[in-house]
């Protein structure tokens, strides 16, 4: 075997100087190995620390939002003794039966009656100043439910003013807390329905998120209706049909780049094109939806291309061998198999759009809007923008409202992301 099988290969190099085998038992070597293991442990610990620190930050963020925002779902109410029979409202219970109840109550001076009842009940603590702006509305609702309140004395729970609400929850100034303590027997807590069902307001006790939530919903509908079909169709084109040429490259580069363009640039685009050129209404859900659709489409395209590319070529070959046309191959076989992956990507893209703020500020969605939008062209705001607006408000009552709105937003986002993860795990196919 020592004869070279290959012409020209050296038979053997000159024997180099011998070297004694390594002695692994020396003290120096053992110390070195110990040090290497210590370094190993330190490095591993460092990695673990990085993971734990990131997770801890997340938990701290969530916990601080929950701690601060949980109070936003709760309102403080005060038991207000009121005698509407003596208030001289000039409305009879009979007028309240039937559809004209609102009209009958509108001019009756109920607000003044509530104020004077408060002045009478809590003369030393500030009287009407203790009540929220929403207090008389609560009385009005109670009267509509039970017209007999008009002719008798009753005690109705009404929401208190923001600073007293904060004081009763343990915050605020010392003076406010003293007032809260003195009134404590009359104070109670309850679910703040106004927060869930109302729209923005200058009074933190009346401010609600339904307006913003509805705005978000309308915006997302527009975004989904545009971004999903366009995204899926362009992914199908690029992955299945596009010829390899410069045009296709240009499309691919555009899409990859758009996915990484800062969102605020899309806002500038929306401002210049939709508002500046097409004169679409400012602050409308339809413009917000269009802007976010431009931003979300590339995300969906990229996710969809991944999902489509993961469908094995053997399935296309099988369909083609049966005489299916290119369109049939894709729409009968490839698309259904790729759909779970596409949906996952779409949900993640939509979640990102739902949390987006900056581009919507650019197209004017930062106005104070006290009524939920009815149509796509109505002035609207969205949940993240509402959070931004409230976070800017100087009234301390908005702090817990901001955090509470963040909780609502995070619940939506977590639900969407959870759904995406579930879909991924449930339908993930390894080819």
């Amino acid at each position: 075997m020592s004869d070279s099988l290959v012409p020209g290969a050296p038979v053997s190099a000159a024997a180099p100087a011998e070297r004694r085998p390594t002695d692994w038992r020396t003290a120096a070597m053992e110390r070195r190995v110990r040090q290497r293991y210590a370094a190993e442990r330190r490095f591993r610990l460092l990695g673990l620390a990085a993971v734990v620190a990131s997770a801890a930050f997340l938990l701290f963020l969530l916990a601080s939002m929950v701690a601060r925002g949980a109070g936003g779902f709760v309102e403080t109410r005060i038991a207000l003794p009121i005698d509407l029979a003596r208030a001289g409202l000039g409305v009879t219970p009979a007028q309240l039966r039937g559809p004209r109840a609102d009209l009958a109550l509108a001019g009756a001076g109920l607000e003044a009656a509530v104020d004077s009842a408060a002045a009478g009940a809590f003369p030393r603590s500030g009287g009407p100043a203790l009540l929220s702006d929403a207090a008389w509305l609560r009385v009005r609702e109670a009267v509509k439910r039970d017209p007999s309140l008009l002719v008798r004395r009753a005690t109705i729970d009404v929401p208190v003013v923001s600073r007293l609400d904060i004081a009763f929850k343990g915050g605020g100034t010392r003076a406010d807390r003293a007032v809260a303590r003195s009134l404590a027997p009359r104070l109670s807590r309850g679910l703040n329905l106004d927060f869930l069902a109302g729209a923005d307001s200058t009074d933190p006790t009346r401010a609600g998120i339904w307006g913003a939530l509805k705005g978000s919903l309308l915006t997302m509908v527009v975004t989904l209706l545009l971004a999903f079909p366009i995204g899926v169709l362009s992914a199908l084109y690029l992955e299945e049909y596009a010829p390899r040429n410069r045009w296709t490259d240009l499309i691919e580069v555009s899409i990859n780049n758009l996915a990484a363009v800062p969102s605020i640039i899309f806002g500038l685009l929306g401002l210049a094109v939709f508002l500046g050129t097409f004169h679409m209404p400012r602050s409308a859900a339809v413009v917000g939806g269009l802007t976010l659709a431009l931003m979300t489409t590339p995300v969906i395209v990229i996710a969809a291309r991944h999902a489509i590319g993961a469908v094995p070529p053997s399935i296309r070959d099988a369909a083609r061998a049966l005489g299916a046309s290119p369109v049939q191959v894709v729409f009968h076989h490839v698309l259904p198999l790729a759909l779970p992956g596409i949906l996952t990507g779409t949900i993640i893209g939509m979640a990102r759009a739902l949390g987006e703020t900056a581009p919507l500020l650019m197209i004017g969605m930062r106005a104070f809007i006290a009524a939920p939008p009815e149509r796509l062209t109505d002035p609207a705001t969205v949940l993240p923008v509402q959070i931004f607006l409230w976070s800017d408000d100087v009234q301390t009552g908005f702090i817990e409202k901001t955090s509470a709105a963040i909780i609502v937003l995070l619940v939506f986002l977590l639900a969407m992301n959870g759904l995406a993860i579930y879909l991924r795990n449930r339908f993930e196919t390894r080819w």
Partner: protein
Amino acid sequence: MSNAPPKMTASGVDVFYGAKQAIRNVSIDVRQEDVTAFIGPSGCGKSTFLRTLNRMNDTIPGARVSGEIRLDGEDVYAKAMDVVQLRARVGMVFQKPNPFPKSIFENVAYGPRIHGLARSKADLAQIVERSLTRAGLWNEVKDRLGDSGTALSGGQQQRLCIARAIAVDPEVILMDEPCSALDPVATARIEELIHDLRGRYAIVIVTHNMQQAARVSQRTAFFHLGQLVEYGDTSDIFTNPREERTKDYITGRYG
């Protein structure tokens, strides 16, 4: 044949991947002065068994080894055994050449550096030169030690990997089908090299190529379905196998 104690001994080794048993009750001796070849059809467990010898199976999640493997009488799987030292003493060359994406010099210097084997820069350079010379690569690369190891040809890369393994002065070198990714010319060079290295290191080579086993080894072990079917002198195995299965395999009935 000498009567010196074997370099490595394995007795009653079982290997499991999760619930699946890959190796059944294998006992084998590896002698210092021989090249030992493991042959057998693909999936027979020869590579798996090779990887138990330097505990590379530790890196595979779910792998479990029982039985006993000794290196110079020390239990390889004992708690006191340090994997880092074990692997320095039992080097390994892989199926596909896997030079690090570093320079040729750094590839060879890697082992001495991490184990602290060189006392000085000059010492390190000497180790590198000696290892490359022994691997038969020095003359080809001495003028471009700064080039990337991945820029070499496949055969050169594999010899670089052998030089890398030699650089830490191992006692045993395990080779896992070292030529299967190489062309015939490069394969011949590696076989030459194995021949030259014989005696200085105990060498264990896994191969699916029976001619190669016949050419390079003195002892041959035939594995089939996770079991050691037959183990003996290479000449006996190839000319006069005791077992029917060995004979079938060698004559090409299956594999």
